[in-house]
Every structure is written in structure tokens, then in C-alpha cells.
């Protein structure tokens, strides 16, 4: 009997068999190694192996041959993984792709101005604030294109292979699909197992145990724990959000849409987060963004960390990290009998509503998020939104099997509704800014958690 390695629900035109997968994963492993050394994933033999998988789709790939599309992207693991693969797309479709990554700051500053001015480029872009982009009309609905048999093959695409949370990101509350999920990240704990063992500590299962372990591990040279606390919406809000959700709180109540910052659960979550960092965090944690957290953890200057699962690639990279082989990854601890609800995130990409190359852009989106391309990207260490890619050995080798397992567990435990209520709100930037300032004030002991959250709520009062 032929055993399918990818989930069978999609009905691929070309079934991927164990033999085929073995051959493909051998290539992927080689490609992964090559890409790790800066050598290309666009090598001839890789294309030859994957071409049948792409061409298995009942899609007229060459329909827009000769077109050039622009991709708006920031410097990110997705961009790093995708850039070496672009020649495959051009060879398959005849469509040229221009992609010049920008820093996140530059990207977030430039894109609203470009899109707000009605610019036709970029044709495809990474969406940084979904609610804002949809309310402003900057994203083209994908449903009509998805129904076009010339450029879409739902059976081949196999949307069921995309994580549920990823699919929930793609479809807006009005029932319209605007984006494709391109990555999957979950709030994950990182433990320096050597330090934990040295102190005779087990991996904490509850928030109280985490607090006790972090305090016990803190010394003059090593912080017990490191988490983001910088007072900007893109810094403290995301990890602190996981603490709030795990304490029964909400930033925006998904049921009512009201600000939930003054609820008992939210205050308890912020208080727990702030106490943890005050008691066991590094000096200056009030100004820590993800970069400082990652650097401290990789330098062995922090015993515990908690941030995006994507950090695993860097932590396991001996060129960047001094703690390779010493790290265990774990679930977000639970608080007082409540289920842990780590925060999560899927980067998504969509098509510019003013693009003049919408069909070519759709072909790119379908190709970039397809099973074969996701598997190739996963071989370079990218945590894509597809379960099949996460299951490949090449991804396990590159990302770390234990890290992948912990990230998946956290992704499953996450509550997408709580996340989306805040992060997809049309006024998300204002909400997250006020929340992050409150968290920072609690961490730096400028205010107690209740006052900080009350002030943040008051700031939002009348704005939403």
C-alpha cells in the first residue's frame, strides 16, 4: 500500500508517495545544507525535482509570462527563505519578480503612504496590520481569483494542509479572503537546560513555578528571564498579550469588541509579567525589544526566554549563538488553574487592490504558499503555515525537532480570537501602543499594573 506523507484531504493530482518523499527530502536536506552555506536553493536539480509538483496543478502557469511583479517585503525569515526560490517561479511562469527587502521600520513607514496614495505597486505585499489594510481598502479580495480555474486549483492547493489558525487569518469577519498565511509563529519558552540542571530545576509548568525558577536562576551576570518590555506596540504587546490571555484577560474583548484592559484577568496577567521581569529580568529590561531578548539568551546572559518560536533557528545557529545544544523549548506555563493561551502570529501576504497585475500576483501567492514551495522554504528553516512542511525531516533538522514540537503545541493552544480581536482591530496600532506603554510602566514600576491598565484604557476611551 502506498502511504501518503502529506495529509490526503486535498486530493493532490500528483500523490506524494513515501518513495517520492524520500527522494524529495534527500534533495531538501542537500538544499538545506547548500542554503546554509549561502549556496542556492534554485539549483537545477532542485527545480527538476519540484517542477512536476508545481505543474501537477491544473493552473495555466505561463498565462502571464513576460509580466514583472513587485513584492513588498521586510527583512524577515520568510523573505530570506523565499528570495533564493524566486528563480524557480520565474522559470515556471515566465513572470519576473522584483523583491527588495526593507527594514521593518522603513517598511511600516513607507507602505501606508504608498498604498494610501493609490500606488499600483507593490503587487503583492506582506501585511503588517490586517485590520487597518482591509478597512483602508488596500487589499484585493482573493475569492474571485480563487474561483478562476485558469489561475487556481483548490484541490492541488489543499487549503486543509494550512494550519487552522492560518486559515482564520486569511478570511476576514466579512467572509472575504484577503490574504494567504505565509508563516506560523507561537509564543514559546526557551530554557537554558544547562543552567536549569545546574540549579536542579525542572521545566516550569505553572506561572508560579516559572517565577520561582527565574528568581532562583538570576545572578549578577545572568538574568533569570528575559522578555520584551519596550513601550512600543510592536515590542511588549505581543508576549505580554500571551500572559494576559493565560490569566483569563483580553486586550479587546472578542465578544463585545470593548477594551478589556481593566478586567481582572488582564490586570493579573500584566502584574504577573511585570513582577517576573522586575524580580528576575535583566537590568534595563524596560527597553528590551526582541533583538535584546534574543541576544541576551544566545549570549548565555539569560537563563529563560519567551518569544516567537522563530527564534529557534537563530538559537540553534552556532555562528550566532553560544548556547547551541543547551536549550530546551517548552509550552507557555499556565496560571492558577487556567489554560495557557500563548500568543501567536501568522505573517500574511495579500494583493494590492490597485495592482494592475492581479492575476500574476495571485499566481505568485499560490506558488509561494503551495505545498512544494513551503517544503523548500521549510528546508531553509522557515516555519511556514503548512503542516506538511513542518513534518519534513529537512525542517526538523534545520529548526530543531524539539523546538518544532513545542512551537506546534503552543500554536495549538493559542486562542486566535483573543489575538485577532486586538491585533486585527482597525485601530490596532493605537490599542497596542497604549497597552505596551502600560506594560512598560508596570515593568519599570512607574505605576502598578491596575493603574497602568486603567490609564491605557482611558487613553483609548473615545478613540475606538
Amino acid at each position, binding site marked *: 500500500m502506498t502511504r501518503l506523507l502529506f495529509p490526503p484531504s486535498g486530493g493532490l493530482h500528483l500523490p506524494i508517495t513515501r518513495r517520492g518523499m524520500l527522494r524529495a527530502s534527500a534533495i531538501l536536506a542537500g538544499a538545506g545544507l547548500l542554503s546554509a552555506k549561502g549556496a542556492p536553493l534554485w539549483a537545477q536539480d532542485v527545480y527538476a525535482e519540484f517542477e512536476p509538483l508545481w505543474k501537477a496543478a491544473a493552473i495555466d502557469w505561463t498565462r502571464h509570462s513576460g509580466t514583472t511583479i513587485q513584492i513588498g517585503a521586510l527583512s524577515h525569515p520568510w523573505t530570506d527563505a523565499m528570495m533564493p526560490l524566486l528563480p524557480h517561479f520565474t522559470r515556471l511562469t515566465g513572470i519576473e519578480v522584483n523583491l527588495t527587502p526593507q527594514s521593518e*521600520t522603513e517598511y*511600516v*513607514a513607507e507602505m*501606508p*503612504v504608498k498604498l*494610501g496614495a493609490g500606488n499600483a505597486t507593490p503587487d503583492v505585499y506582506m501585511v503588517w496590520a490586517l485590520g*487597518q489594510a482591509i*478597512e*483602508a481598502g488596500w487589499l484585493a479580495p482573493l475569492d474571485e481569483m480563487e474561483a478562476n480555474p485558469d489561475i487556481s486549483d483548490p484541490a492541488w492547493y489543499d487549503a486543509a494542509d494550512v494550519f487552522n489558525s492560518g486559515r482564520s487569518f486569511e478570511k476576514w469577519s466579512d467572509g472575504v479572503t484577503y490574504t494567504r498565511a505565509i508563516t506560523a509563529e507561537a509564543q514559546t519558552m526557551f530554557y537554558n537546560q544547562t543552567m536549569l540542571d545546574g540549579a536542579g530545576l525542572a521545566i516550569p509548568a505553572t506561572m508560579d513555578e516559572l517565577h520561582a525558577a527565574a528568581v532562583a536562576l538570576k545572578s549578577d551576570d545572568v*538574568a533569570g528571564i528575559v522578555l520584551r518590555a*519596550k*513601550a*512600543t*506596540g510592536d*515590542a511588549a504587546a505581543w508576549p505580554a498579550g500571551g500572559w494576559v490571555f493565560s490569566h483569563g484577560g483580553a486586550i479587546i474583548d472578542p465578544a463585545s469588541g470593548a477594551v478589556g484592559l481593566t478586567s481582572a484577568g488582564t490586570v493579573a496577567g500584566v502584574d504577573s509579567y511585570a513582577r517576573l521581569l522586575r524580580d528576575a529580568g*535583566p*537590568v*534595563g*529590561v*524596560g*527597553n528590551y525589544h526582541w533583538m*535584546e531578548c534574543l*541576544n*541576551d539568551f544566545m*549570549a548565555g*546572559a*539569560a537563563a529563560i526566554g519567551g518569544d516567537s518560536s522563530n527564534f529557534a533557528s537563530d538559537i540553534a545557529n552556532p555562528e550566532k549563538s553560544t548556547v547551541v545544544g543547551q536549550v530546551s523549548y517548552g509550552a507557555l506555563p499556565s496560571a492558577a488553574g487556567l489554560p495557557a493561551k500563548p500568543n501567536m502570529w501568522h505573517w500574511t501576504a495579500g494583493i494590492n487592490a490597485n495592482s494592475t497585475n492581479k492575476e500574476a500576483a495571485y499566481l505568485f501567492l499560490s506558488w509561494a504558499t503551495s505545498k512544494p514551495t513551503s517544503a523548500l522554504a521549510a528546508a531553509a528553516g522557515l516555519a511556514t503555515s503548512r503542516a506538511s512542511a513542518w513534518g519534513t525531516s529537512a525542517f526538523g533538522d534545520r529548526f530543531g525537532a524539539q523546538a518544532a514540537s513545542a512551537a506546534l503545541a503552543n500554536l495549538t493552544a493559542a486562542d486566535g480570537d483573543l489575538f485577532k480581536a486586538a491585533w486585527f482591530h*482597525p*485601530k490596532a*496600532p*493605537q490599542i497596542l*501602543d497604549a497597552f505596551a*506603554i502600560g506594560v*512598560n*510602566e508596570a515593568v*519599570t514600576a*512607574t505605576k502598578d499594573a491596575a493603574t497602568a491598565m486603567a490609564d491605557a484604557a482611558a*487613553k483609548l476611551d473615545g478613540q475606538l
Partner: protein
Amino acid sequence: MTSRGPAFLRDRPPSLPRRAGIGRGRFILLMLLPATALLVGLTIIPFLVSLGFSFTNYSLVTPDETAGIWLRNYRQLVASEEFWSALRVTLIFTTCAVAIQLGLGVAIAVLLHHETRAVPALRLLYLLPLAITPVAAVFTFRMMFNPTLGVFNFLLKEVGLPAQDWLGTPGMALFSILIVDTWQWTPFMLLIAIGGLAALDEEPLEAAAMDGAGPWQVFRHHTLPMLFPYLVVAVVFRAIDAFKTFDIIFVLTGGGPGIATRTLNLLAYKQGIEFLSLGYAAAIAIVMLIVTIVASQALLRKVGLFKPKAIL
């Protein structure tokens, strides 16, 4: 040839414009046209557009719902605690930065003014910060300020002093930003002060020394008053620039901790670029412009009242 017009025009040989078959007035207009077009295109029109935006609720998220709301943005601004906090931070930062940099710039200029063999090399060294890309330099400082891995705390520990939370507490964060700004902009003050010193008439200074004045007295009662007009220009330029400082604060603290280092420019950025409320952000920018004009005019008028005798 007509005798009307300024002397320098009357004295000019009339042949050039006439030979070209263009009247003098038209010739002058033609010469002024490029600069005027640039001024209108790059300054006047954007200013008028911003002024117009400030009277609307223009948001990039809902551009179709833009409507005139007259002074509501301004009323909302002055009623907001964030605005007064940002204005206070901006004024403290500008005053401290300009005062420190003026003192250091003049002091170093005076030291360098006395010729020694090392002066050319030292001048180059002092001016280097002006040549370095600001964001790259500020990112380096951000790493140096890192409490755990940064070089500043390493040095403090080496001499037995406690590590500091350079960017994590409100007071220290502003102080750290001032350190970086001072590192970057003291050379500007130095440059103008050195130029001013080189242009001074040495005779009064020599006469004062011959009359028995000590070096400090010569500096305090003669050099400084003579240097005063140059320093005022430096202060006005630097103060306007410091008032608008963005990159250093954005990279180092992002306006935090809390909103302790959020200046008016950062507030405008947040409203305009992050929240996409361009009408409100434009109102903040207009208020900044008004504050700048009023403050610089007040300073220049004050200078007019207290012109140093050495110049008179």
C-alpha cells in the same frame, strides 16, 4: 541706462542682458526663477498642504471620509496630556542639548585656537561624528548602552561602579539620549566657534592682555562678547534641529520608558505614520513650527537688544 535700482546693479556693465535681448527686470526674474520654483515646490506648497490637512480629519485608513473640522485637531491636541508631556520633554531636551553642546563646543574651540602641531589632527577627530551616518552610529550606541552586554556597563564594573540602566528608567533614558546627541552635534558648535574665533580681530584681545587682564578675563570680557553673534547663529540652528530630533530617540528608546522620552516629533510620527491620522499629525507639525518660529524670533530679538560693545 536708467539710474534707478541698487548701486550694484547700476554699476554693472549693461551689455550682458541687453545683448541677449532681455530686459533687466526679466533677466533678474529669470535668474530668480529656479530658486523660487524650488522654494515654492518643496517648501511653500507642502507647508500649505500640511496646514490644510491640520484643519481636517484626514486619515489614510479612511481617506474618503475626510472632512473639514476647523480647529478640532488643535483643541484635541492642547487638551491631551500626551501633548504637554511631549512638549515638556522636547523643551528639556532642546535646552539641555544646546547648552551642553554650546559649552563644550566653545571650550574645545578655544583650546584648539592656540596653534599646536596636533591641531589639524584633533580638528579632524572632533569633526568625525558629523561625518558618520546618524542611524548607524545610534545603533552602535544602543548596543553600547545594553545593560548586560554593553561596553559602558563593562567599563563601570571594571572600575568598581554599579551597572546602570541607561535606557530603562525615565531620567537615565533622557540623559543617555543627551550623551549621544552631544557626541554627534558638539562638532557643529565647535565648527562655528572655531570659524568665529579665526575671524576675530586680535587687537582688542592683545590690548586687554597688555593692560593686565588675565586669560579668563580676556575670554570672559572680550573674546566671548566678540564671539557672541557667531554663537547666536549656532544656537538658533542647533536649537531648531534639536527641537526636531527624531532618529536618536526613535532608535534608542522609541519614546519610552512609558512616554518619558516621547518628544513632539515622535508624537507626530506616531500619529502620522503608525496611526495614519495625517490631519492630527499635521496639527502637531504646525504647532512645532509655530513654537520654533516664536522661540527663534524671540532669541534673535533679544540678541538685537544686547549687541556686544565690541561689535558696536
